[in-house]
């Protein structure tokens, strides 16, 4: 480009703009991923009737979704379409969100109102994987 340009042309863009230029393709800094959150039932004052477990880490998904999630998040093609629509056609369409894709169950021991004690296993209580949708 420099060879074709006449010597009077503006000097080549300084290198730091290149990093700006490439930034738009890199993964977002705070990309969508799983975060820990350790909760104890005594914090919620539930420990009088939730006997076990004492602590519980539901984990959650937080972060920005890249414009082309691709393989990394196992997102369907719809996510890319939604991202393009949101960016180019209608900003009212929300960008893809960072949400849990898979969960694990949790076993809980509770005291019931009638004084009986119940052991129960609940589905989908701990997030184990995130995705962009």
């Amino acid at each position, binding site marked *: 480009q420099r060879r074709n340009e006449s010597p009077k042309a503006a000097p080549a863009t300084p290198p730091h703009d290149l990093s700006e230029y490439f930034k738009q393709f890199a993964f977002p800094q705070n990309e969508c991923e799983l975060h820990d959150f350790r909760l104890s039932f005594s914090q919620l004052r539930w420990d009088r009737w939730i006997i076990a477990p004492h602590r519980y880490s539901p984990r959650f998904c937080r972060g920005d979704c890249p414009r082309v999630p691709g393989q990394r998040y196992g997102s369907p093609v719809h996510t890319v379409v939604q991202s393009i629509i949101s960016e180019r056609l209608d900003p009212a369409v929300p960008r893809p969100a960072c949400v849990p894709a898979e969960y694990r169950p949790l076993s809980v021991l509770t005291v019931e109102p009638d004084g009986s004690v119940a052991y129960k296993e609940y*589905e989908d209580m701990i997030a184990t994987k995130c995705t962009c949708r």
Partner: protein
Amino acid sequence: NSKGQGGSEKAPGFLAAPEDAASELGALLQLPKEGGQGHAFVPHLLEVLAERILRGLDGGAPWLQPDSRAIRYMKRLYRMSATKEGFPRAHRSPLYNTVRLFSPCRECEPRRRDLGEGDVHSVDLRFNLERVTALEHLLKSVLLYSFDTAVPISSSITCICHLSLKEHDFSSQVCPNISHSLAFSLHFDVRKRKWVEIDVTSFLQPLIAMNRRNTHMVLNFTCVMGDPQQSTKLDNPVNVALVPPSLLLYLNDTSEDAYHWGNSLRHGRKSPARARPRSGPLVHPTKGDKGKRNSQGKRASR
């Protein structure tokens, strides 16, 4: 709503709690107040919480505190059924996802007839099984015996028991009480075992299946020291103070909130909407083109 048909048909989730309780619940859970619908269909776990709040709010009957022995037993069952992090352990039978332990009703304190040494003892047991939902199917039920520490620590004790189930069948005036009965013997070494379990599954199955939530049993038993096989006659009856047994129900909760062992693949399975990139044209698993499959097969192995 088709699920939440009230009564014990109530699904594990529940419809939005009354506004004041919901806001209380929301405040406690720091849930957004305006998200009134956010409270709808919270799972059973929070239903128990909401019930506690409602009882507190409208001055309902306070929660009954469970028997300390019951809590000790269920904590032991929890350690056997779940890891430290609270993940359900596999490899157990039956494959339950719910276990409920009921202590005999307090208000109807089991009636004991004071009998002399070695005579038959009789205990009236009533259990209120209201907490068992229609979606919880019975897999196994067990009478759980523990012993007063006052019992003389001996090598072993043998009890001959006779359990009869009293069903107050109000429809037929002719015989108000239909009772099934079950005879069994308990042989145990008091030092080693704090709990003795008697399987009464076949005995209770019909009751649970008919959604009978109040059971009335009468237990007659007599106990002797040692093992009757060795000592020919009942020469050393003992006045064993058997604590009225608790009733343990192993259940399979078929509601959506409950964890179903068949889903254990789910935690390795990709979420349904996740499109897996196809490496080649869709090949029907059975009819697929041999040539293509072999080449694909070879390529895959390479």
